[in-house]
């Protein structure tokens, strides 16, 4: 009798083990699209060229169905006295900083999603609503998002924003690198409209070469640093500047990909579900042994 039920126990334990392992083969594929194509596109922003006309802000809103107003109203530079951040009313903004070494004019810096090569939001999103596409854009899927805002916690650039005052279907908003426009062969709206060609759109590898060449030719104009070449493992949007990037509103970041350690921990704990299944087996064994010991003790007493 007891032999039979022991076999039952082993059988059911094995079944559970198999069930969990079955789960793991699925979950190996259960990650969002995260393509790091060698041909991915990027943008080189030359902050020494930008004149702060804010036409890109207007074009961005037009392209994303956000109320944009008259283009003339964007000539008002008063608004730049205070640093602004992108949100659901503007996916990109231009901020102004004191002059760098290249001229006496203020430096203007465009702010938008950096479209990281190893995006923290893609790694973090609980449902995999974020994805890194082949052309380099990091985009968000409204049909999946549950509004947990973990992407906002994860992003090292504080880019994703949320519609806190909407009771139903609040969106996570951020620059999508004009994914729809580029799919149709058009340029991203901000790059299309820029009157001074401060933004250069092209394959990321070529942009790095262009940026290095500019620094080499004009060492007096630029500091020797391409922001985004290595930061958090590299970003699609890269910046040239005439002074330290910390003074231009950029965060100080290391070269390791943002999600790095957390994914390693996560995969370590779960390594093909071996640790959890082993723990299950171990506890089952302990339960069996401790019960057995108790019974032996009692038999001795009798």
């Amino acid at each position, binding site marked *: 009798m007891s032999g039979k039920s022991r076999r039952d126990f082993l059988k059911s334990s094995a079944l559970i083990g198999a069930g969990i392992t079955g789960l793991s083969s699925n979950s190996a594929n259960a*990650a969002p699209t995260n393509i790091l194509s060698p041909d991915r596109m990027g943008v080189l922003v030359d902050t020494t060229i930008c004149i702060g006309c804010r036409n890109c802000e207007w074009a961005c809103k037009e392209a994303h169905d956000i109320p944009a107003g008259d283009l003339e109203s964007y000539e008002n530079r008063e608004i730049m006295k205070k640093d602004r951040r992108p949100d659901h009313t503007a996916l990109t903004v231009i901020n102004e900083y004191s002059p760098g070494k290249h001229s006496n004019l203020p430096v203007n810096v465009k702010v938008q999603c950096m479209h990281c090569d190893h995006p923290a939001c893609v790694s973090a999103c609980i449902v995999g609503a974020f994805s890194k596409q082949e052309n380099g854009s990091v985009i968000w899927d409204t049909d999946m998002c549950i509004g947990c805002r973990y992407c906002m916690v994860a992003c090292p650039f504080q880019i994703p924003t949320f519609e806190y005052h909407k009771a139903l279907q609040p969106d996570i908003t951020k620059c999508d690198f004009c994914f729809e426009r580029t799919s149709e062969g058009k340029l991203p709206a901000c790059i299309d409209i820029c009157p001074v060609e401060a933004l250069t759109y092209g394959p990321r590898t070529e942009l790095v070469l262009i940026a290095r060449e500019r620094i080499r030719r004009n060492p007096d104009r630029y500091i020797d640093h391409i922001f985004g070449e290595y930061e958090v493992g590299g970003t699609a949007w890269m910046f040239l500047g005439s002074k330290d990037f910390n003074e231009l509103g950029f965060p100080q970041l290391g070269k390791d990909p943002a999600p790095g350690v957390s994914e390693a921990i996560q995969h370590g704990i779960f390594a093909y579900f071996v640790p959890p299944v082993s723990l299950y087996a171990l506890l089952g064994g302990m339960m069996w042994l401790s019960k057995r010991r108790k019974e032996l003790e009692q038999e001795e007493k009798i």
Partner: protein
Amino acid sequence: MNHEDINPVPVKRKFFTPGVIVLCVLALNALVFLAIRFFYGIGAVTNLDNQYPWGIWIGIDVAAGVALAAGGFTTAALGHVMHREEYAAVIRPALLTAMLGYTFVAMGVLVDLGRWYYIYHPLYMWNGNSALFEVGICVMIYLTVLYIEFLPIVTERFIGKINLPGILSKLNKLIDKILRVLDRGLAKTMFIFIIAGVVLSTLHQSSLGTLMVIAGPKMHPLWQTPILPLLFLLSAVAVGFPMVIFESLIASRSLKLKPEMHILSRLGGMIAPLLGLYLAFKIGDMFIRETFVYLTEFNTASIMFTVELLFGVVIPLRMLLSPKVLKSPALLFTASVLVVAGVLINRINNFVVAYTPPYADYSYFPSIGEISVTVGFVAMLVLLYRFFVLNFPIVSLPGKASGPSAKYTVKGVK
């Protein structure tokens, strides 16, 4: 039989007392703010914004809630897996706490989710890289396991006592039969769920710590460490028994029962080694990463870190090493409260205090609405706890005859 027999019975007391009425008011207050949140959005009642996406609803309701419900799996491991039957009397109260605790964790998540009506998405939209996905799935499964573990208490309460009025009385026999079949099935398979519960708890208690690792430099170096998952697991294990003691002493006072000091003192004796292990890792981590330099600064972070470690770990650890403390209900209660508060503050520190985004232009502090909802959830939890204790066989009254002792064992051994 060398173990103490237990006999859980519904406690016969009035539901309403002045304290209960205060709790009802707090719960109703929370419902008002929840209504505003669901009609006008999260921004209408919270101080959350694009700088601070997570506040106390995640830091307390979810993170601390999960940690403080750890008594469920630590007592299950002790009582069922290690077969220490002398602790049988605290298993049911701890199970009830865990079940209610996790239910309110789920509610906390629900109100914090921007699109709460999509809460089921993680069930079929998987991201294996996400620590939050792991926590979400584990908590969902564990909540189910807890409900299953609680079912025998429900069947025990109703078997042979089904007495529906009027026309429904024809169903009495059928329902009774279903309950009996359910009870027998559960008794045979319960060990599967008990072990699963312990495994699931180990997993998500630690993954909860992994959550903030991805925030990288946004999190203060005093807390940001790759061993966060280990620290979260160790502190959850350490807070399990203090939470059981804390509740048991409060419950026996509120229900006017004699405190079960013979069990609680022994439980208390096990806290010190667990707490010591946690402290060793916490201090070791601080020295390896040389973060103690931040303690020389005088700011919110250094104060909160000191409070968390000194009052939440060091002082109760010293107290619990003394036999005098373990024998005195008042001192044991004080030490347990300190450990519980220490873990609560630790979770708040990790999720709220330590978090500073790069473009912050102010510090987050919870709004009246956020505090009301958090307090209201705790009030609702206590009310439900009281309801269950008064109506279901949860609490063992000392000195009564024997009942079902360790009912759930590995099936092989009869």
